């Protein structure tokens, strides 16, 4: 089927296409304007902005810890307003089904769950498979697992470590590798309560830095497109900016991605010893081209923090609101669920301002990514409001007027005039994420690209524009029209598929038999276990 999206304002920075024009789609792909053919279907995009489908690189949308958070907070789902049923299970608050619908309505077509414990990969993929419409991907967590730490301690060859990383990525169907507070979860099991970049994991004698560098090297050598995705040490602690700075310095010319940098932007100035280091971190990012970051913006209201940084979550259980938490010592990382309410008080205001400072002071939209670390800084449903804050200085000032002025005085936010353009938004949320993740088929509107398209009706209310897209097209299907789901379909989980090294498989089989009394089969699964047609889409590694 041939579709013509007519008369919209096309924003496609990758192909340098900016301005009014038509976009043509044939079946699942974008095509050049076909000479002499008539469209089977024409979508009127007059007065609209036309972009590629958005890509979220860091959003906790499924897997064990996310599900535990749902289980912990039934009273929050119950508070959801009653809505008429539209599409299967889409009125079930904070479910997989609703997640896909809500993302699609905002024009997002690919979302990465960034914290999959390899041991519970099947559970994660089953949840992702029940997220409709959009494509998904996961990052596999390494860096607190005994097998890796033991190899580093025993000075295993880099080849062996790469084989292990490749096996983990392949068997867990991941698109990349994440390391979370490297070594801290292992140290916490031995009753260590704080852990910094150069602290050493007991029983292994391996430093956090060593773990990060080892994984960074393996990821790079294996040609995994997405650089090692690092959740630094000391998240949330006043003074964590020093840790983040040290981690940025540790990139040493090799690509490294730092997740939710906002949560490390905390200094120790002022009466409360809590201040913004947003400007300092932005400057460091600007001057370190091999580093990319995402923000983890804080927006106000009730949320729940979900993290595999079990040490950090344990530490913050006293701030839980409502007062109930789950702390899980898993194989490797585990995790913690701590409900939290961001208030527009001093601390909340500082956090809010730091995120915006990072967004606005990091110059290169190709290296800064749009996230709230859903749901840790805010649920992803707050994205439209965040777009408005980035694109309008007036909107920022209006929001800032209601916050703690003492807190804002400790940040540079008030002095920043920058407003994001549609082109920059398209880079940050489409082109750059596709490049970062190695997804060549999306993030742009050039011929041959996957027909993932978001059409937004321009208006004064930027938040409203991004909240309910006029049209969203996924793989050539119109899935959203005027903010409502029109078509239910099943996306895929994008994965890498490096071939497993036979010696490594034998080694792991022996390891699991000896240490767990289980065969390696327990930790793998056939694609058929997902029970969807083509549950996975394969992405190739760099040569």
């Amino acid at each position, binding site marked *: 089927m041939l579709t013509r999206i007519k008369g919209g304002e096309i924003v496609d920075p990758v192909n340098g296409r900016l301005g009014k024009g038509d976009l043509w789609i044939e079946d699942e792909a974008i095509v050049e304007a076909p000479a002499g053919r008539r469209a089977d279907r024409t979508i009127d995009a007059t007065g609209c902005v036309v972009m590629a489908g958005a890509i979220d690189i860091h959003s906790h949308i499924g897997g064990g810890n996310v599900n535990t958070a749902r289980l912990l907070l039934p009273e929050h789902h119950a508070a959801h307003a009653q809505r008429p049923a539209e599409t299967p299970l889409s*009125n079930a608050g904070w479910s997989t089904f609703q997640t896909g619908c809500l993302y699609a309505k905002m024009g997002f077509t690919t979302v990465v769950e960034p914290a999959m414990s390899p041991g519970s990969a099947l559970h994660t993929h089953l949840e992702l498979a*029940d997220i409709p419409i959009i494509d998904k991907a996961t990052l596999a967590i390494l860096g607190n697992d005994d097998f890796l730490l033991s190899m580093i301690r025993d000075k295993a060859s880099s080849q062996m470590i790469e084989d292990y990383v490749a096996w983990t990525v392949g068997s867990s169907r991941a698109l990349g590798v994440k390391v979370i507070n490297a070594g801290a979860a292992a140290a916490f099991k031995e009753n260590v309560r704080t852990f910094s970049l150069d602290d050493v994991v007991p029983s292994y004698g391996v430093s956090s830095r060593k773990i990060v560098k080892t994984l960074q090297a393996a990821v790079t050598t294996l040609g995994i497109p997405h650089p090692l995705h690092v959740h630094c040490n000391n998240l949330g602690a006043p003074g964590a900016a020093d840790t983040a700075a040290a981690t940025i310095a540790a990139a040493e010319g090799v690509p490294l991605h730092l997740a939710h940098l906002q949560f490390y932007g905390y200094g120790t100035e002022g009466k409360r010893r809590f201040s913004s280091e947003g400007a300092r971190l932005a400057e460091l990012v600007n001057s370190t081209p091999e580093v990319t970051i995402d923000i983890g913006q804080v927006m106000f209201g009730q949320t729940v923090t979900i993290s595999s940084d079990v040490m950090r979550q344990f530490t913050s259980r006293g701030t839980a609101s409502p007062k109930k938490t789950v702390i899980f010592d898993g194989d490797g990382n585990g995790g913690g669920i701590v409900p939290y309410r961001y208030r527009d008080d001093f601390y909340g205001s500082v956090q809010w301002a730091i995120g915006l400072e990072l967004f606005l002071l990091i110059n290169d939209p190709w290296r800064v990514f749009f996230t709230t670390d859903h749901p840790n800084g805010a649920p992803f449903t707050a994205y439209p409001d965040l777009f408005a804050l980035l694109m309008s200085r007036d909107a920022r000032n209006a929001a800032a007027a209601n916050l703690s002025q003492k807190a804002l005085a400790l940040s540079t936010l008030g002095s920043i005039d920058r407003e994001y353009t549609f082109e920059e938004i398209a880079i940050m949320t489409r082109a750059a994420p596709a490049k970062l993740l190695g997804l060549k088929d999306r993030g742009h509107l050039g011929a041959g690209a996957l027909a993932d398209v978001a059409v937004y009706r321009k208006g004064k209310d930027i938040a409203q524009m991004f909240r309910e897209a006029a049209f969203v097209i996924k793989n050539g299907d119109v899935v959203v029209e005027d903010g409502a789901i029109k078509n239910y379909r099943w996306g895929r989980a994008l994965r890498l598929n490096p071939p497993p090294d036979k010696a490594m498989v034998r080694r792991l089989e022996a390891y699991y038999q000896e240490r767990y009394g289980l065969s390696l089969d327990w930790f793998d*699964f056939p694609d058929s276990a997902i029970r969807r047609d083509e549950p996975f889409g394969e992405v190739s590694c760099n040569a």
Partner: protein
Amino acid sequence: MAVAWIGDRDVPVAQAAKHAAGLLVSSLSPVFSFDTDVHGTRAAIALAERVGAAYDHIGGEALARETALFTDRGGMFIAPGETRRRADVVVIAGSLPAHHHEFVGKLASTIPDLGGGASRQFFLIGAETRAAYLSKVKPTRLAVTGSDVGGTLAAVRAQCAGRAVAEPVSNFERFAKALAEAKFPVFLFCGQSLDLPGLEMLQGLIADINRKSRASALHLPASESGWGSTLASTWMTGFPMRTGFGRGMPELDSWRFDVARMLAAGEADLHLWVSAKTSVSVAKGVSTIALTKGKKPVAGAAVTISIGEPGVDRDAVAWSSRIGTLAAVKAQAATDLPDAASVLRLIAEHLPDGKALPC
């Protein structure tokens, strides 16, 4: 071989499914109870939404208590693998159902290899515990005269915090010493022998210990399929089991949607039963659709369709306490009996809108 019946009459599966669909459509208050794998659960919940049904696990009492621990309090938990590799003190709170004895027996025959613990000591909380499967490791019994496991847990926690008790815990000095020296004590628990207050008390004890040192709890569910269904229900609807769709949107109510209660109270007019392991007893005045593994129709059931047992007749995805997560299970002896999900999808295809289930 017949695999589907309408009443006593054997019919093709499609005809039975069509009849079942008709009953579901005309039912005003259908209820589902099931004991199946994750995919059976997914299909059952998707069908429940379509026909406005409430669903529960078969014999869901203990599961409801374990669920309530998570919804009402949360807690600290540990993976079974870490338990095996780190636990130098193992405390069994209450008794454990037989299907966990093999795993605990493995704990008893191994020692920790991580975290520095050199041996493994066992303690049992609750006077009623008789753990023959642990006889080799000579567990120390912690009990309070005249108290059940709930009272004993309370006394253990009070004594650990240095507060007075009316009646002391037996062998407490030994336990206190073991805790003080332990690298990583792990408490094993199950909702079958602990009620919700007992489960909360145990978690309180663990929270107290974690102020200064480490400890955690290993959840050994009363029903593995029940826990798997709980996880699937939670991601699909936002709610665990005992959720109903009577008003369109999912509502969680562990009292109202206790399916056994609903049947006893005459609140349900149709009962869809899904279990290849156990067979339904048909309630009076309730038309029953039985998806069960049998060679004969269920007496009194309006429709019976024979299904394969997850992991036995059919490949399945099920919760496993061995790894503390969902596992792909290969059929032990594959048969061509359809799995529950296929039959449920088949029924859905005969609903008036004819749409496929989303699961």
